[in-house]
């Protein structure tokens, strides 16, 4: 029986008076890929950002309910945000490497958390770049600027950067929406491999992508979680009429 990494109970999120997420209840299984799908503005990205509390930075944003990570509520007052974000890494919609060298980008996280030793850092950087399938392309240019890489390489670098702090969970917010089809295919392949080590939660507006790479799918609509289930079942025999309309392309 697989274990749940996240257990979300009665989660409400407001931006000022805008009720963006309504009583969300769902489980996210460990070491599997969970896809969050739904039309633009349905709250899937907002939900994703609740899982590592990146919404804390948005003025006027308030959250109620419970988000349990391995059984303890991350919205508890005692939560150490630094520790939380170390356990729950994030990859963003647009590739956002820092204006530094490739090496320094990957070493950024470990250095934050106190790794100073050159050999240790070199090992972490190599290992992380191998995990993100970028090592063979950049092994000889580790000290050139990260911004000189192509968009797809930059996104894999961002994955390496997130992996370098040894997280348990990787949150991905439409990680391929700014990439061309070739680069997208490589990232998807990578996501499938990442599942063996990490719990992956990926937001996508692309249903084929969700069908290709995820084990579980959650369908969001207008701030509500409409349906949740194994991806296979979701795309072949959805229970809810709205899910069926969405995945058959009747709206969204």
């Amino acid at each position, binding site marked *: 029986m697989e274990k749940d990494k996240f257990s979300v109970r009665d989660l409400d999120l407001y931006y000022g008076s805008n009720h963006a997420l309504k009583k969300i209840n769902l489980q996210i299984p460990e070491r599997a890929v969970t896809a969050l799908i739904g039309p633009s503005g349905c709250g899937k990205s907002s939900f994703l950002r609740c899982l590592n509390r990146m919404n804390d930075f948005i003025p006027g944003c308030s959250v109620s309910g419970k988000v349990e990570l391995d059984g303890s509520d991350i919205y508890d007052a005692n939560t150490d945000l630094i520790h939380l974000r170390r356990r729950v890494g994030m990859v963003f919609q647009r590739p956002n490497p820092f204006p530094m060298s490739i090496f320094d980008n990957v070493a950024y*996280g470990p250095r934050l958390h106190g790794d100073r030793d050159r050999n240790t850092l070199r090992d972490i950087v190599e290992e992380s770049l191998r995990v993100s399938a970028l090592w063979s392309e950049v092994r000889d240019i580790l000290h050139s600027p990260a911004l000189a890489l192509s968009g797809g390489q930059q996104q894999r670098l961002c994955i390496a950067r997130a992996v370098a702090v040894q997280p348990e969970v990787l949150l991905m917010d439409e990680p391929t929406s700014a990439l061309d089809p070739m680069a997208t295919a490589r990232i998807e392949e990578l996501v499938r491999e990442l599942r063996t080590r990490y719990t992956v939660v990926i937001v996508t507006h692309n249903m084929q992508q969700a069908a290709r790479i995820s084990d579980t799918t959650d369908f969001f609509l207008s701030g509500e979680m409409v349906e949740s289930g194994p991806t296979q079942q979701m795309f072949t025999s959805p229970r809810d009429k709205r899910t069926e309309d969405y995945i058959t392309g009747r709206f969204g």
Partner: protein
Amino acid sequence: MSGARKSKDRTATIMLWLVMALTCGMLALILAFLVSKGWSVLSWEFLTKKPRSMMTAGGISTPIVGTLQLVLVSMGFAFPVGVFTAVYLVEYAKDDWFTRALRLAVRSLAGVPSVVFGLFGLSFFVIFMGFGPSLLSAGLTLGCLALPVIVGASESALLAVPRDYRDASYALGATQWQTIRKVVLPAAFPSIITGAILSVGRVAGETAPIIFTGAAFFAPRFAKSIFDQVMALPYHVLILATAGTNIEKTRPIQYGTVLVLLFFVLGMTMTGVLWRARLRIRQRAQR
């Protein structure tokens, strides 16, 4: 119809070109005037020797060094204070009435006439703090003058750092200070430097703030301590032009000094621009 429109368009182009030519012409004229009056005295001796014979002969090494010292002291004070004020305003301050008032105050400071800074420096640094008329007092006064420029430039530079970088840093578990120190400040640094260099130009050319606070009419040697008075290029020009011992005879020295000051400021600006270009290239190499 179309003919009228075309001729209007041509007129506009010509007008704009004329205005541009006027601006450039004025600058060229000023430069030509200064060069014709002062070029003759420019020499290695002029730059490296101290003034002699009641400042009617010799060089201007003491005011050159004095101006450099004033710039150093003022930047040593204004650069860190200005940058960190901007960091506070952009990264930490809440957007409330207090912050807005603070911003407005800093902006207005930039419009205060420089003689007011001079009087402030006199009553605060020279008298109240007891620094006396000195390199320190004059440098700090000039620093106050440069502060709003540096704060303004740093603020825009920090605001221009993409939100993405901050997000990426926080998502890796960085604290706010780690994010500022390792990502935001380095990314903003090239623009901050430009602002600072521009303010150096202003600091080096100001007379009013230093007259009461530490500029010497004449000093026989370089300032050895921050409590010594110093000669400065702009004040030296003022003296030669209005209070010298032999104004007509020293005209060439006066214009030579102006040229040196001008080249100094130009040189600083060029250095700033080149430095920024290099930093930019290092950060974001072309694909």
